[in-house]
């Protein structure tokens, strides 16, 4: 017999360290349970509710009609003859197809993305940011925001030992960041968000983290997710200014993950784009601070995760570094063209004088209103449960409540070789068929426990889920007291 070539021992050591909690052990168990249910195994529930991943359509949210009409026209242009499609949809489809090689969405595009889409994205950004100019050359379309985020991290990580690039990321964070940093062998510099102050960001904490980090690495990048994932906090304008000032002082490259920019619910909260604030701080900042901001078609009101559409805008990047970025993205050929087309529609939606406008606005408003209501409901119900503390869900799509776990439960978890909040979530899954992600997957202060739940199930179902989790928590607490 010939020897096995590729084994656990000789595979890439960096890859061995990569974990991605959103799809980890608990999701695998959820999948198994679903299988068992299909095979007729009796359980205390009839379906598994997957409130672990931010996938709106999977939870029943309907696509926006206009977007799908245009995409169908792009896929099968013969439908342009069909008078059931509105003129504005046809117009956009024709424009997109014109920009595609051979007028087909099946042709490769330029690796930076279809030019007219980048132009439209730039115009959208200008409009959103009160006229601050955006250059299409600084726009890179990507396969979801994840692709662009990983690309930037890849670009910026260098050095050995004490000079190794350090990347600042919040605790809690969306685990794509920690996974990418592990894969790249970069140093993760954690800064804690303040749970007692609604998960807000404190520059003093940033300073503490970066100073400590300078002992053992070279901090060069600061990542911030706004609105936050998993916490949902929407940063105030003042906070954003403080962060920008901090980045300038510490010579950090800012990565602003803004994929939830349309998902803002709480009164008094508003989305401020990092770029807009940067430019409003004057040329001392706007011409020096290096930044990349990220957006995607997976969230907001569209929820089109399956298309993998996204972009990043890079600001003040050294031209030689930018040339390397352009080279790097060309290795992966191009982002999926349907995703690029979809992005074009998102940044170029129906206007008030167009036939699809009313329906479009109605659908969009309904989605965002439902999310806002669910955010409010979630906070209310969880805060009624003793032992569960839930910060307001100001934005994004998740709640990240803190759960008090009895010492006996913590001990039992240890016995079973599980992290306590994983133990909790696994029990919840087995007893109620609800799949959440334990807080340990996102990071949390030592000694605290959380879970992340999406607020995406339809309102009636969400009410049931909230009730079941509440009841479970009380039961669990009693069992281990």
């Amino acid at each position, binding site marked *: *017999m*010939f020897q*096995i*070539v*590729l*084994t*656990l021992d*000789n*595979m*890439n*050591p960096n*890859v*061995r360290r*990569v*974990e*991605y909690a959103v*799809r980890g052990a608990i999701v695998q168990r959820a999948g198994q349970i679903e299988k068992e249910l299909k095979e007729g195994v009796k359980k205390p529930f009839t379906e598994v509710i997957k409130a672990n991943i931010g*996938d*709106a*359509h*999977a939870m029943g*949210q309907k696509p926006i009609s206009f977007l*799908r009409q245009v*995409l*169908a026209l792009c*896929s*099968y242009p013969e*439908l342009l003859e069909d008078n059931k499609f509105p003129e504005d949809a046809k117009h956009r489809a024709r424009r997109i197809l014109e920009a*595609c*090689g*051979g007028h*087909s969405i*099946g*042709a*490769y595009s330029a690796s930076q993305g279809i030019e007219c889409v980048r132009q439209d994205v730039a115009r959208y950004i200008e409009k959103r940011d009160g006229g601050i100019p955006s250059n299409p050359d600084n726009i890179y379309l990507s*396969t*979801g925001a*994840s*692709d662009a985020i990983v690309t930037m991290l890849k*670009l*910026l990580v*260098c*050095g050995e030992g004490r000079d190794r690039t350090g990347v600042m990321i919040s605790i809690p964070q969306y685990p794509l960041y920690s*996974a*990418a940093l592990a894969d790249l062998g970069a140093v993760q510099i954690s800064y804690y968000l303040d749970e007692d102050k609604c998960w807000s960001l404190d520059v003093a904490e940033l300073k503490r983290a970066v100073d400590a980090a300078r002992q053992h690495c070279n901090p060069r990048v600061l990542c911030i997710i706004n609105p936050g994932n998993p916490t949902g906090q929407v940063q105030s304008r003042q906070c954003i200014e403080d962060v920008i000032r901090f980045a300038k002082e510490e010579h950090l490259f800012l990565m602003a993950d803004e994929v939830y920019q349309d998902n803002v619910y709480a009164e008094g909260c508003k989305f401020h784009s990092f770029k807009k604030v940067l430019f409003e701080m004057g040329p001392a900042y706007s011409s*020096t601070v*290096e930044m990349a901001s990220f957006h995607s078609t997976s969230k907001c009101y569209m929820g089109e*995760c*399956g298309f*993998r559409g996204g972009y990043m805008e890079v600001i003040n990047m050294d031209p030689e*570094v930018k040339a*390397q970025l352009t080279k*790097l993205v*060309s290795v*992966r*050929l191009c982002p*999926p*063209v*349907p*995703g690029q087309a979809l992005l074009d529609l998102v940044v170029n939606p129906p206007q008030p004088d167009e036939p699809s406008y009313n329906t479009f606005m109605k659908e969009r408003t309904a989605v965002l209103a439902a999310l806002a209501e669910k955010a409010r409901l979630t906070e209310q119900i969880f805060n009624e449960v003793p032992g569960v503390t839930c910060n307001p869900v100001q934005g994004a799509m998740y709640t990240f409540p803190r759960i008090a776990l009895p010492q006996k439960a913590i001990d039992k978890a240890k016995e079973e070789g599980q992290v306590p909040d994983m133990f909790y979530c696994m029990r919840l899954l087995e007893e109620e068929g609800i799949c959440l992600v334990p807080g340990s997957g996102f990071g949390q202060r030592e000694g605290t426990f959380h879970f992340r739940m999406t607020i995406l199930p339809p309102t009636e179902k969400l009410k049931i889920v909230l009730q079941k989790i509440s009841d479970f928590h009380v039961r669990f607490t009693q069992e281990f007291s």
Partner: protein
Amino acid sequence: MSSLQLVNPRVRGIRRSPHSGLQSLAAHITQEITQGAQKPFKEVIDVSSGDPHKAGVKPISFVRQVLAVCLHPQLMKNKTLPLDVRLRAQRLLEVCDGGSVGSYTASSGMPHVKQSIAEFIMRRDAGVPSHAEDIFISAGSQRALMVVVKLLASGEGETQTGVLTPRPCPHTLPPLLDEAGVTLVPYQLMEDRGWAVDLDELHRALKTTRGRCEPRAIYISNPGNPTGHVQDRKSIEEVIRFAAAERLLLLVDEVYQDSVYGQEKEFISYKRVLFEMDKEYSETVQLVSFHSISSACMGECGLRAGYMEQVNMDPEVTQFVDTMLCTDISTPVTGQLALDLMVNPPKPGDPSYDTYTQEILLTLATLSQNAQRVQEFLKDLPGMSCQPAMGGIYLYPCLHLPSEIIEKAKKLEVEADVLYCQMLLEEEGVFLGAGCQYDGTTGNHHLRLSILVPPDTLQEVLDRLGSFHRRLVRDKLPRPDGGVKDRDMGENVRLFSTAGTFPMN
């Protein structure tokens, strides 16, 4: 400001593909035309890379109809769409979370599609078993290849992982290997034998790795990209035995398996050959094969979906494949659905079957006829010759260049074939790929020409190419003492051949 010094050295080390320079030039010229510049041609024709739709080949109707209905399910009520289209869309939407193509899927791909792929492989390989859990779907086969190579990659300097790579290879491959952090170890394919793989050459290449890197994999494409060579069973067995003996993971790119047109040639998969060998091979040799919807018949490059099948891989390692794919979250759903349609097309009796079959046959006929036409055309062109291709979508002609071009290229510090392609672009608006693997001993340069283009387009390309090439040869002919204008073309060719090659470092 972050400077070049602070860019990841791995990224800095990614070689620039000469193709991207030519691509920029082509885009630039196109823009000039749009802005009203006067050129001797109306538009740039791009036949440099495998993008059939861009070149004007139409998508498969069934695929696009099903996707349209999946995107906009209201179309289910549209009776002008064939019944099998609507039924298939319905079935596919049933296996999408929330009944929408806008949901994420499992990171390694939709179970339904993976199952379709496994069944396709079994049918293709005369019953050799294939399992959905060994199939991993990704955004294009390139992504799958990157994941596997990254999994393999370790070490630095002398201990850096090496991957044996054919020469010529797809122009996208070297930058991919650079990004993954592995050493490219070239093995020369044998041009005079139709670009066949040579065992002695494999051994020679392996020897060169001693003290330079740790070879751990061998990459090969079959049908060959860009050579068009189709391996027979004996050749495949040879490569498998070599990989087994030398402990190399087999990475086999079979994306053009659907385009074998050579007479008496047939595609046979590496997996099938492996399973029909002795148990000591079939149960242990580690093999990963790749396929995608960027294939000849589908041409759906822009939808970005492909898959790999892992054979005899350690499950503890395979779980990391899944972890790595997790960071992509999932492959674009429209691409995954197109994969399903590719491996599970209309059957005899289905309403769409006839149209579907016609479209596939047309593609294959186009390839075959175009290949023949180009071969005949090249025979008449001084300094050009081409090995017959049997499959794939390219021809890879060999080019002897006039000495003046070679000298000019040296001065400009570009490869002579790149200069040729640049001049062809500027003077005639035809974009061919440059081989960029100059062979000092033979004086050969190469060009890469995609033949999956509508016949009219090909004719236009050949007319312009012919015109350019003859002008080039005529104009650049070194003149001894005059009277050159009536010099016979044939004599010129002999002159270049006997003049031999020019020493190029």
